[in-house]
């Protein structure tokens, strides 16, 4: 494995520091670890077990997208998953240094066509969007960032 460039640096002053930051090899065998950590932190952030599992699924999908599309199956690179509790929101950032994915080019899910055309692309993004309140993609060279956010069930009120 090559020595990686740091995918991200420490949070600048004024920005929320992550609860946890994982730097992982670009290998699918680490998806289980991502899932378990996400579920645990989701529950700690106040989500019930079932919702925490769904957030873990959305995170699994985001990481899988990086492995398949941004890194094209290469296993010698790294990616980063960072978890934040930012005000009322729980946020998971997935960062990579691969090929940027423009979500506008991902086909819309049409289940009827999927069943007859053997198409399966776009399901992961569709799941992420259904589970999370917000899914955004951005690029600041050389990094791609997929940010998944969901309002916590008992977040502080704006006045708090």
């Amino acid at each position, binding site marked *: 494995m090559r020595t990686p460039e740091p995918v991200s640096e420490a949070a600048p002053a004024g920005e929320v520091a992550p609860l946890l930051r994982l730097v992982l090899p670009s290998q*699918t*065998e680490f*998806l*289980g670890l991502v*899932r378990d950590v996400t579920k645990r932190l989701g529950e700690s952030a106040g989500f019930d077990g*079932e919702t925490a*599992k*769904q957030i873990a*699924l959305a995170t*699994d*999908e985001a990481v*899988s997208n990086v*492995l*398949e599309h941004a890194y094209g199956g290469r296993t010698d690179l790294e990616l980063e998953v960072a978890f934040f509790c930012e005000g009322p929101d729980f946020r998971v950032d997935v960062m990579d240094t691969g090929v940027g994915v423009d979500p506008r080019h991902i086909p819309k*899910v049409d*289940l009827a066509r*999927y*069943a*007859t*055309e*053997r*198409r*399966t692309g776009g*399901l*992961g993004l*569709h*799941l992420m969007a*259904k*589970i999370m309140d917000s899914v955004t993609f951005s690029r600041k060279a050389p990094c791609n960032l997929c940010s998944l956010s969901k309002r916590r069930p008992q977040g502080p009120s704006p006045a708090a």
Partner: protein
Amino acid sequence: MSELVVESRQCDEVTLIYPRGFINAHTVRLFEGEIQKALADQRFKIVVNCAELAYIASAGLGAIMGSIEEIRENGGDLRLSELNETVRNIFEILGFNHLYRIFPSELEAVMSFRGEGAHA
């Protein structure tokens, strides 16, 4: 511990597939392979018993989507049974519950194939 174990057995004309654990991009080949094995044996009546399936990501759903046309073209079907809350929620989020027949028990899923003709 392995993330996924997949076993299968025959019950008359029906192939029963038992995924145990987690289906995602890392493990999907095992699950897909078991479906493909049934198709290679010309067995197109399939029940996936999800009683011990903890979790299924889009890779696993894609494996089902990728084989369903061939299965139905051959007069068969892929049906599911015993989905836990997590897996059922995922199916409902994607609308898969409208595309696939889902049964509370394996027996009901197997029995649903009875009287459907030579292939299904």
